[in-house]
């Protein structure tokens, strides 16, 4: 290797090292307590924003590290003590580790969506249960449908918090038909419904771009109805702690649940608690 090549490689390594070191400008000299969180990818965007708002209002108090991985990962991490806060978009299950405290921080609307070529105005609870459990198999049997043909059900994988919420709130005792196609994220469900005319599925409120969101029991699925309580399909977002929260975590969660600033942040896309 010529000297020039060697010098170039050394310069590149040095540049990377300098960039990596100087980039995180919040590597402050004083050591602050760190609040670590991991869990649901649906709750994570909200958590990022709340963390930023908290740091703006109370600068310099804590540091945040928010990782993602899924509701189950978050619950397991906090149960094992790896993080201080687990983010969950599903309600507590009896199979969760013991000793966990679920702190509700926000609510989120779940919409039933269909393809734009099939703009069903309204779906009642009975209709949704019949469609998703496979009792009704053809769009011609659904009043208000814009087309005929087999119904393609799109659901989520078992670990999903959205799936858990949909099951509890919309389906009750019925279960999703075994013919359904399971997708791994809200985006993939949205994409599947967008590209298949016969499809029906459910997503979080943010993902209704380019598809048609049906009204549920006569109430349209939008943020205003969710906030006013008129829309029935609303699920909870939780911040889970091991035992009751203490120290900086407790201050943060109190701030999230009570301060007007936090409620304003939540209100941008989700349903605040008060």
């Amino acid at each position, binding site marked *: 290797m010529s000297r020039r090549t060697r010098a170039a490689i050394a310069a590149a390594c040095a540049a990377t090292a300098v960039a990596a070191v100087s980039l995180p400008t919040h590597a402050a000299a004083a050591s602050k307590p760190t609040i670590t969180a991991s869990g649901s990818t649906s709750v994570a965007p909200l958590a990022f924003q709340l963390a930023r708002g908290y740091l703006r209002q109370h600068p310099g108090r804590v540091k945040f590290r928010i990782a993602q991985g899924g509701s*189950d*990962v978050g619950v397991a991490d906090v149960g094992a003590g790896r993080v201080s806060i687990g983010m969950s978009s599903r309600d507590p299950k009896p199979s969760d580790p013991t000793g966990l405290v679920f702190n509700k921080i926000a609510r989120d609307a779940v919409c039933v969506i269909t393809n734009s070529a099939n703009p069903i105005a309204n779906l009642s609870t009975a209709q949704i249960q019949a469609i998703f459990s496979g009792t009704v198999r053809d769009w011609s049997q659904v009043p208000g449908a814009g087309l005929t043909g087999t119904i393609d059900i799109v659901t989520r994988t078992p670990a999903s918090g959205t799936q858990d919420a949909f099951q509890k709130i919309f389906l009750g005792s019925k279960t999703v038909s075994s013919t359904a*196609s399971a997708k791994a994220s809200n985006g993939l469900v949205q*994409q599947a419904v967008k*590209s*298949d005319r*016969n499809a029906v599925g459910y997503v979080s409120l943010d993902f209704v771009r380019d598809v048609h969101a049906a009204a549920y029991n006569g109430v349209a699925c939008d943020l205003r109805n969710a906030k006013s309580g008129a829309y029935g399909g609303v699920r909870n977002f939780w911040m889970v702690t091991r035992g009751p929260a203490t120290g900086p975590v407790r201050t943060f969660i109190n701030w999230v649940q009570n301060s007007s600033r936090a409620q304003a942040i939540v209100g941008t896309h989700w349903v605040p608690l008060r």
Partner: protein
Amino acid sequence: MLGALAVVVLLVIALMLTFVAIRAWPAFQHNGLHWFGAQGDVDQQISTMVNTGANPSPADYRFGAWPLIWATILTTGIAVVVGLAFALLSAIFIVEFSPLALRRVLVPVVRLLAAVPSVVYGLVGILVLAPFVGDHLISSDRRTSVEFVIQLSGPGLLVSVVVLTVMITPIMIAIIVEALHAVPRSWKEGAVALGVNRWRAMWTVSVRVARPAILAGAVLACARALGEAIMLSMASGGKGFAPNPADGLTFVFEPLRPLAATIVENVESINAPAIRANVYAMSLVLLLSTLTLSFGAWMAKRSMRRYGVAG
């Protein structure tokens, strides 16, 4: 000291194998050899395991992975066979028959394609291919004929195999092109001097000499196809169903989900003991298949070693 480092590498690999095997053991303990068979709806079993969480009963470990194994065999097998034929012909084209300007463009492009991340291929699959197949190739009659068993929307065997073939072919093309270039020119020139035409000289001399490399490329592509998780979890249809060739043309559109895609979809719940055992069991099956693959290739290479160019 060098020997010590080599032993360290070996120890890490052995650690990985033992680790996966140990964690996979409960799944085989509760299912025995039936784990490899079909014991009902795979998705239902996974759902049960996820919902029982931290305290599963022995019955919750029940899992029959055959639909997933069959899906893996189908997608990998078809993709490798089709990809190999296509790669061989393309490589011969690149080396022998293509105009020089085209060759200079194609080789870097092929190498680039081999490095495109799988998410992008998955996106192409669900944004372009799956809607096309769903809208134009699947008739509503076909859908109603199977509506009580599965859904025929776009994603399925056809889309998965097409995208998977496109994903693994560049690797094979790159390896075969290099091997064909490494064939001594004098050998080809000898054939041409004897009056053989270019195609035949290529086929009977160069390709035959490059057989070990072609085999190595096929094995590499097969390993990549076996391990392809993210693209397949997006484009393959999301249902643990074993496509049935006896269904005729419908077979091509049926949804399925290979082993690696199932693993990646269930990594989230890996802290639940029942799911953990079965996910590691699936990983063990994948590991052992690649082991068997390389062993088979080694045996085949030994018989080719006499005239071959090393792959």
